[in-house]
C-alpha cells in the first residue's frame, strides 16, 4: 500500500494498455504502472441493423467482442436502451472500426458514442480518477482519496526544468532551417555544449539526473524538441537511446501541425510533442499558460480529467467540454461522436428575436467624465444555472407549464431535473467564489495568493467560454436555443437594471453583455456607487461589482459609419489605471512603434483629470504625432520596432495579388522556410511600391537592422493609429497625412453592424475551440 499522487495516464505502446505515472508521496519517486485497458465504444441503431452488425463484426479480426448491453447512450434518452458495445483488440483500431461501422450504416443509420475520447481520458472517467489526484494504491487498485471537485486540495511536489536548444550559427528567431547542428542545450541551470553526439548523450543524462516532472520550453513543439529529435537521428541515436520522457517515445509529434478554419479566419495549430511520464509544456503553444500557469492548468486538468499536457495545448472550450463529459458520464450518459443536436424549427420572427445578442445601448462617441462602471461577475453562467438552461432540459416534455420561460422567446426550462450545463457550471461558480473569498483572507503567503489567483483566472476563462460554446456548431452538448435564451434573460435583466439605475440617480450611457457604464443625473451629487452595487446585487440576486469611476473615458466610433461600437474605448480610472479595449496597444500584432506612440499619447492624456482637460491636451497629442512622423520620415527609426505581423490566410500559391505578405512568404521560401496558413509572419516594409519580393519587404528572420524602410508605409500606419484614438475629437487620417505631405488611399473596411461586432467579440473568445 502506497500513497501519493496520480500524475498522468498515457497510452501504452502495445496498444492494449494505459500507463499510470504515480508519484510516491513518501519517497518522491515516480512509479510506472501498466494497466490492461481496452475501453468499448457504443453503437445505437435500429434493432435489426444492430443484429446484422453484430454478426458482421464477429468476422472482423480487429474486433475482440461485440455484445449487447442496456444503457442510456444519449443525453436526450430518458430510458435505457439496448445498444451494441464494441471492443477492439487494440486501441489504435477503435476509430478505424468505428469508421467502418459508420460507413456500413451509410453514415446515417448508426449513432456512435465514446469513439473519439483517448484511452487515458476514458480510463480517468471509468475509474473515477483524474490528473493530480491524491491516490492510494496496492497491487490491485489505484483509488483517489478525494473527488476531483474538492476545493481545497494540496498540490503535489512538482519539479520543473527549462529546456532550450540553440543551433549552430543562427539566432533562435532567425533563419532556421532546422537541419543545422546543435551548438548548446540548456537543461534547467546547466548549459551544455560540445561535439554533437556527446552533447546529446549528456542532454539525456542531465535530464535523467535532474529528473524534472515538467520540461518547460518556449516554442518547444515547433523548435527545441523536433530539433533535438532530428539531430539525434542524424548522429545515430534512436527512439530507445535518446528520449526526454521517463520512457522512450517516438520521434514523431503525437499530433501533427495543421491549419484550420474557424469563424472565417485561418488558424494554425502547432504540432504537439508530448512525453510519457514527464510533462512537456510549451509556453509558446499554450493559449492558457499566460493566465493560468501551472496552478491554473492543474486546476483545469483535475476538473476536465485531461492530461496536463493536453490541457496546456487546448482551448478553454475543450476543457469545458471535457468537464461536461465527466458530469455526463457520472449520470451514465455517453459521449456522442460527430453528431449533435440541430436547431429547432421556428418562425422567421422568432429567429429574429433570438438573434439579438446582448447589446443594450450603443456607446455615445466622444470623451466623457463622471462615468462609473459596473460589471456582473459571471452573469451568463449564473443565468444558465439559475434558469436551468441546458440542451436536454430546454423545452422538455415533462413540464408544459414551467416556472421559467425565456423572455420574449418562450423557451421552457425544466422544473424536474437539473440540466448538464448547470450541473457542470454550478461547481465552477462555487469554486471561483470560494477562491476569491480565500484571497481576501489576511495573512496569505505570496505563493498561496499566486496559486489562488491563477485558479481564479483559469475558471474565469472556462466560465466565459461556456456561454459562447452553447452557440458553437460543433459543441457536443450545445444548443442554439440555449444561447438565445441566455441572451434573452440577460437583456431582460439589464433592461430592469436601467430603471433601477435611474431611480438611484444614474443614467445608463452604455451597456453590453454584462457591463454597464453610467453617469450621475446630477454630477455634483453623484450616488454612492458601492451602495448602488450592493442594492442592485440584492435586487437582482446577482453579484454586481463596482469596477470604478473614470476621470475620463473615450468611446470610439467605427471607422465605417462613425457610430459608437461596443468594446472600443479607452479610459482612465480615478485610481490612475487605464482601461483599454479595441485599440492597437491591446493587439500583439501592432508594431512596436505604434504601441510606443499610443503609450506616449496615453501618458499625455493620463495627466487630464476631466473631459475638458482631456480635450485641452489634444493639440499636444497632435504635436507628438508630428514628432513621430518627423523621425519616421528621417529613416532612422530602429527597424525591429517597425516589424509588422500578419497572419497568413492561404498557401503562397493561392495568393492572386502581390502583397507584402506574398513578398515575405517568397523571401522565406527562398531561405528554405515554409509557413502554413494560420501562422504569422513578421516583416519590415522596405518599399511598398516594389514589384519584386526581394525589395518589397525584409522578413524578421533576415533582418540586419540597417536596411532602408518605406517611411510612407509607416506614416500611413501612424495616421491610422492617431485616428483610432482621436477620431472622436475630429482627427482624420487623411488630414494627418496631408499635413505630413502624403496623400491617402481611400480604402475602407466593409460595414459591420454593432451586433456583428458583439458577435465577433464572442467569436474571438471562442477561437481555437475547434
Amino acid at each position, binding site marked *: 500500500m502506497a500513497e501519493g499522487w496520480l500524475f498522468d495516464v498515457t497510452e501504452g505502446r502495445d496498444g492494449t494498455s494505459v500507463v499510470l505515472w504515480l508519484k510516491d508521496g513518501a519517497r518522491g519517486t515516480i512509479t510506472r504502472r501498466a494497466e490492461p485497458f481496452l475501453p468499448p465504444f457504443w453503437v445505437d441503431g435500429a434493432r435489426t441493423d444492430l443484429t446484422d452488425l453484430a454478426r458482421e463484426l464477429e468476422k472482423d479480426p480487429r474486433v475482440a467482442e461485440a455484445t449487447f448491453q442496456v444503457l442510456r447512450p444519449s443525453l436526450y434518452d430518458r430510458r435505457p436502451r439496448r445498444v451494441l458495445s464494441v471492443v477492439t483488440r487494440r486501441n489504435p483500431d477503435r476509430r478505424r472500426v468505428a469508421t467502418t461501422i*459508420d*460507413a456500413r450504416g*451509410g*453514415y*446515417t443509420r448508426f449513432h456512435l458514442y465514446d469513439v473519439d475520447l483517448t484511452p487515458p481520458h476514458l480510463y480517468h472517467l471509468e475509474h473515477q480518477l483524474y490528473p493530480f489526484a491524491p491516490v492510494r494504491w496496492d497491487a490491485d487498485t489505484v483509488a483517489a482519496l478525494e473527488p476531483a471537485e474538492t476545493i481545497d486540495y494540496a498540490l503535489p511536489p512538482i519539479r520543473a526544468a527549462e529546456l532550450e536548444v540553440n543551433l549552430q550559427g543562427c539566432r533562435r528567431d532567425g533563419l532556421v532551417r532546422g537541419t543545422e547542428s546543435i551548438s548548446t542545450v540548456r537543461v534547467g541551470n546547466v548549459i551544455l555544449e560540445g561535439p554533437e553526439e556527446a552533447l546529446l548523450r549528456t542532454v539525456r543524462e542531465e535530464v535523467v539526473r535532474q529528473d524534472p516532472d515538467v520540461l518547460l520550453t518556449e516554442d518547444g513543439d515547433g523548435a527545441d524538441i523536433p530539433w533535438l529529435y532530428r539531430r539525434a537521428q542524424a548522429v545515430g541515436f534512436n527512439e530507445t537511446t535518446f528520449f526526454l520522457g521517463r520512457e522512450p517515445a517516438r520521434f514523431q509529434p503525437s499530433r501533427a501541425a495543421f491549419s*484550420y*478554419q474557424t469563424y472565417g479566419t485561418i488558424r494554425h495549430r502547432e504540432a504537439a510533442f508530448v512525453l510519457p511520464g514527464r510533462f512537456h509544456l510549451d509556453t509558446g503553444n499554450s493559449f492558457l499558460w499566460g493566465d493560468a500557469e501551472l496552478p491554473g492548468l492543474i486546476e483545469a486538468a483535475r476538473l476536465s480529467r485531461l492530461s496536463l499536457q493536453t490541457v496546456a495545448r487546448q482551448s478553454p472550450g475543450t476543457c469545458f467540454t471535457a468537464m461536461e463529459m465527466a458530469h455526463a458520464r457520472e449520470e451514465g450518459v455517453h459521449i456522442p461522436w*460527430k*453528431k*449533435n*443536436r*440541430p*436547431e*429547432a*424549427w*421556428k*418562425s*422567421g*420572427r422568432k*429567429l*429574429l428575436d433570438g*438573434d439579438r445578442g446582448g447589446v443594450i445601448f450603443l456607446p455615445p462617441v466622444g470623451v466623457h467624465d463622471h462615468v462609473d462602471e459596473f460589471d456582473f461577475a459571471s452573469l451568463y453562467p449564473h443565468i444558465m444555472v439559475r434558469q436551468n438552461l441546458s440542451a436536454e432540459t430546454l423545452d422538455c416534455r415533462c413540464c408544459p407549464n414551467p416556472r421559467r420561460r425565456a423572455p420574449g422567446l418562450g423557451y421552457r426550462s425544466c422544473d424536474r431535473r437539473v440540466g448538464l450545463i448547470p450541473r457542470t457550471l454550478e461547481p465552477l461558480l462555487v469554486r471561483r467564489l470560494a477562491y476569491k473569498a480565500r484571497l481576501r483572507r489576511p495573512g496569505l503567503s505570496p505563493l498561496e495568493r499566486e496559486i489562488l489567483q491563477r485558479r481564479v483566472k483559469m475558471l474565469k476563462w472556462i466560465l466565459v467560454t461556456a456561454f459562447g460554446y452553447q452557440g458553437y*456548431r*460543433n459543441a457536443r452538448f450545445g444548443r442554439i436555443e440555449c444561447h438565445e435564451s441566455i441572451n434573452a434573460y440577460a437583456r431582460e435583466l439589464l433592461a430592469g437594471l436601467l430603471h433601477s439605475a435611474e431611480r438611484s440617480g444614474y443614467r445608463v450611457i452604455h451597456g453590453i453583455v454584462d457591463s454597464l457604464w453610467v453617469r450621475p443625473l446630477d454630477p455634483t451629487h453623484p450616488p454612492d456607487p458601492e451602495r448602488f452595487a450592493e442594492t442592485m446585487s440584492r435586487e437582482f440576486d446577482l453579484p454586481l461589482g463596482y469596477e470604478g469611476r473614470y476621470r475620463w473615458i473615450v468611446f470610439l466610433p467605427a471607422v465605417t459609419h462613425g457610430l459608437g461600437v461596443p468594446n472600443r474605448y479607452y479610459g482612465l480610472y480615478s485610481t490612475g489605471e487605464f482601461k483599454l479595449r479595441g485599440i492597437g496597444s491591446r493587439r500583439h500584432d501592432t508594431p512596436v512603434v505604434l504601441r510606443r506612440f499610443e503609450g506616449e499619447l496615453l501618458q499625455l492624456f493620463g495627466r487630464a483629470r476631466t473631459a475638458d482637460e482631456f480635450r485641452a491636451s489634444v493639440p499636444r497629442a497632435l504635436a507628438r504625432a508630428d514628432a513621430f512622423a518627423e523621425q519616421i520620415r528621417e529613416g532612422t527609426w530602429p527597424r525591429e520596432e517597425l516589424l509588422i505581423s500578419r497572419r497568413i490566410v492561404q498557401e503562397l500559391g493561392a495568393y492572386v495579388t502581390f502583397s507584402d505578405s506574398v513578398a515575405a512568404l517568397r523571401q522565406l521560401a527562398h531561405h528554405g522556410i515554409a509557413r502554413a496558413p494560420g501562422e504569422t509572419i513578421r516583416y519590415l516594409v522596405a518599399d511598398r511600391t516594389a514589384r519584386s519580393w526581394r525589395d518589397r519587404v525584409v522578413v524578421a528572420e533576415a533582418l540586419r537592422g540597417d536596411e532602408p524602410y518605406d517611411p510612407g508605409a509607416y506614416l500611413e500606419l501612424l495616421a491610422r493609429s492617431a485616428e483610432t484614438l482621436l477620431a472622436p475629437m475630429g482627427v482624420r487620417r487623411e488630414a494627418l497625412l496631408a499635413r505630413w505631405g502624403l496623400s491617402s488611399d481611400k480604402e475602407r473596411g466593409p460595414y459591420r453592424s454593432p451586433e456583428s461586432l458583439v458577435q465577433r467579440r464572442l467569436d474571438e473568445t471562442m477561437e481555437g475551440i475547434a
Partner: protein
Amino acid sequence: MVSRGAAAALASFHSAWSIPDLVPASGPASTPAGPVGPVPRVPVRIRRRLPARQVLPTTPALFGWLGKRFAPGEATVWAGASSAIDRLLELLYAGSALAKGRISLLEGANRFNPYRIAEQGQALGLEPTPVLEGIHLARAFTAYQLVALVDGWSAEARRRRPTLLIGHELPALFDNPEELPPEEREPLLRHVSEQLAELVEGTGLPLLLTVSGGFAAFPGLAELGPRFSDLVRLIPRPAGVELGSAREGRRLLMVHRAPGQRGLEEFAPPDATQEVNPWAAPLPLTGRHSRNG
C-alpha cells in the same frame, strides 16, 4: 397599390444585378450556357402537373411565372448564381406572404436574412411580422445537422402544414473536407435525396430546391430525389436577369425600365418563347440605361 409596391421590390431585386461580379461575359439571351451546366437528360423526370395553388399570387407577372413552375408533390430546382437565387428567394418569401402562404424552409447555407425579407415584404405593402411569421425554418450548421433536419422534415411538414417547402443550398455544408470526411459526402447527400423524395411523396407539397451548383453539386438528386416539375436557371444578363424554364422552354427576361421610358423589348423581334417583364421604378442606374435606350 400592391403592384406598385411589387414594382419597387422588383426594382430593388434588379439593382442586385448592377453588382459587377454578377454580370456575365455577355452573349445572346438565348445561349443556354450558364453557371449550371446541362440538365441531366434521362434521370430527371419532369412531369406535367397542375400548378400548385396558393404558393404565389398570379400578379405581378414575375410571381405568376414563378408560380407556374411548382407542382404538388414535385420538386422545382433553381440553379444559377447564388446571390441571384438569394435575392429572388427573398422576393418569393414576400410573394408567398401576399398569397397567405406558409413556407417551411430548411436553410443549408446560413443565409437567411430576416431584415432583407422584411424589407421586401414592406415593398409589397406587407408588415414585417406576418411575412416572417409565414416562414418556419431550421438552419443547419453542420452536414450532420442538415441530415438530421431533413430526416425530421416530414414530421415538421405534417405538423405545420405549409404551402411550400424550400431547401436552400442543402449541399453547401458537405463541401468542406475539414468539417466532413470527403468519403461521407456522397452517401449522405444520396440519403438526403431519398428523404426529399419521400417528403414530397408523403406530403404532396411542392418543394423548391435552390442549388447554385446545379445537379452536379448534389449527388443522388437526379436519380434518387423527388420527381421534378421544373428546373429554373437564373442567368445574369447585361439588361437584367433571365429566368429559364427547362420544362416549357420559356424564358422570363427581367429588364429594367425608367419611368416614361420605352422598353427595349418593344423593338426586339417577337420571340414566342420569351416573356419580357419590364417594370417602372426609380432607377439606380438610369444614366447608363437611358443613354442606351
